């Protein structure tokens, strides 16, 4: 069975790039454009890994990650934070919110696939 990745990203283009790259590498991609949608899809779709944009409107990536991890049976869900700010402290905040990995935008699609592959191999 294909492994499934939930991409929570408000920018449509970036969502699409992630989808192309991950689908090209043989993963199934579930898309969510907001934090709330991300939480809902995590709950219903049970993905194998979540790529979580940090700078989301309304419900940001930190809070969305916290809520996903608070769902029953989701404590161990792998969440990789994606930040475009590259500010000091972002990574720490992401880890504090429960994120397992951290990547800054703009990332190369190839790098993203490599990172996802590494985390899924660990899980």
């Amino acid at each position, binding site marked *: 069975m294909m492994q499934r990745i939930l991409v929570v990203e408000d920018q449509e283009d970036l969502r699409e790039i992630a989808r192309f790259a991950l689908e090209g590498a043989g993963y199934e991609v579930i898309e969510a454009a907001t934090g709330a949608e991300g939480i809902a899809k995590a709950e219903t779709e049970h993905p194998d890994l979540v790529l979580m944009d940090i700078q989301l409107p309304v419900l940001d990536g930190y809070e969305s990650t916290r809520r996903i991890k608070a769902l029953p049976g989701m404590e161990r869900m792998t969440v990789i934070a994606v930040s*475009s700010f590259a500010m000091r402290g972002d990574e720490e905040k992401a880890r504090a919110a429960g994120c397992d990995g951290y990547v800054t935008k703009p990332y190369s*699609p190839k790098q993203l696939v490599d990172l996802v592959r590494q985390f899924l191999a660990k899980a």
Partner: protein
Amino acid sequence: MMASQPSIAGQAHELTCKVQELERELTEARRQLAATGEILRLISRSPTDVEPVFDAIIASAVKLCGAHQGAVYLYDGNLVHLGAHRNYAPEIIEILGRMYPRPPQLDQVSGRAILNRAVAQIEDMRADQLYSRELTVVGAWRSQLAVPMFRDEMPIGAIVIARPEAGAFSESHIELLKTFADQAAIAIENARLFAEVQARNRDLTALGDVGRAVSSTLNLKVVLKTAVERAVELSGTDAGSIFYYRPEVGRFELGETAGLDEEVIAKFRKLDIFMGETGMGEAIAKREPLQLPDIAKRPKNPLRDAALETGLRASLIVPLLGGEGALGALVLQRRRTGEFAPSVVSLMQAFADQSAIALENARLFDEIAQKSRELEIASQHKSQFVANMSHELRTPLAAMLGYAELLRDGMFGELPEKSVRIIERVQANGKHLLGLINTVLDISKLESGQFKLTLVEYSLDGMVETVRVATESLASAKQLSLRTEVVRGLPYGFGDEPRLTQVLLNLVGNAIKFTDAGEVRITAEAKNGSFVVSVSDTGPGIPEEELQRIFDKFYQVDSTSTKTKGGTGLGLAIAKEIIEMHGGRIWVESVLGRGSTFSIELPVRAEVSGAGV
């Protein structure tokens, strides 16, 4: 021989007479000497008080010049005043008390001496048509002698002696009286000088107090309170206040006060005092102190009416003028009517000058504080804008770079070779643009103080190796040799590893970029608790005049190189900032045509100041 006998007796008599006369003269001279000596002692003993000196002078003058009465008259340049006197009958004193002070006149011998600036005699007052009729009747004298007293050749009074008999005074008595007049003048001058010195000292002390307050504190209230309190104290008036002028409303506002009770202050504060209708406006317009000897005679206005109600009658208004117009006024107020003395006016002028300086200082200080607050806010807005903007720029760029890579990697099918090359150019330019945006973001973070160091343990050896690996391909593409010389066994460093790597990458990247042939060499060693890292190249070198400015923001040695070599001109400015935040320094040495060496001296263990986690 016999014929000479009586003449011998005559001679003896003559000699005896002469001896007696000489003895008399000697005795008189001794008495005169004793008297003048006594007066001089008195002068030196009581420099401030001329009265005992005058008493002694007139007593001696009367006694030694064969007179019965006498007096010292003082002249202030305008009026003659009766001073010490001796043996005047009560009715004479009564007449003189009524007569003086008055301008010098020819009906008195003192007046003649003062007006003519010369010794004056009345040999017989009954025969003198000009002499005061009243005194001719009552006065118990027939002849009078007056000698003027001088200071700087100006008459300041006269000594007068009187005798019951008519006739001229002897030359020796005139000379003696002149001596006494000189002594009296010395006593007056001494007392005047002493008083002046004291007053000056007092004024200077007070001005010093205010001056110190002006320079030691920018607290305007303290300065002006000191000024107005000292002004009232020194001028001996009843009250004083400083009014501020508020140009935006065209009105005065009561500031600091002295000698006014709370109730009056509250009353003054409520007044609407407009520039046009008060003495303050007048003084400011004329730019000089204004005397109001009786405010009851002034046209009605709120301040005048309120002051009158509290019993104040006379005012002295000194304008406070700043570089840009009226700041306000210093106002002295007195219950008694009349003008303020010139010395008070000039002292108040000095106080007003000090107060104006204080006001001006405070105004400038406020202005500067306000301006720097505005600047700070503007600068924060700018930095925030730049930070937001660069973030916004990165989002579409991320999409462009992402799509380009997907295309390049054949995600949507193999591309013709030409297309691959074009996509690679798009990628290269996109990455360059990303680098520029990141640099601008760094600068904006530096400027807004958001740029913080995260200090960790690092290996300098490892850092140099990382940089070498990252730049190796750039160097070999230009056929440059890239060499590293790192001293073995360097200690671990403590600093912001990614930032320091960024600096070193920048220096090596620049060296490779600007060098067309030869080598780029990185050396690293540790000396006295610091790492010294140098990047040398065999490039074109940097002209002497550019060396100082090369670390300035947006500075590029040759602006045309921006087009050919790229870059924002920010790399070195950021490098300098990062190194300095670590407590280190960065500098460059260069010889034109031979190459450049950029060096960094960096504490092995950086201090935590300016660093945030």
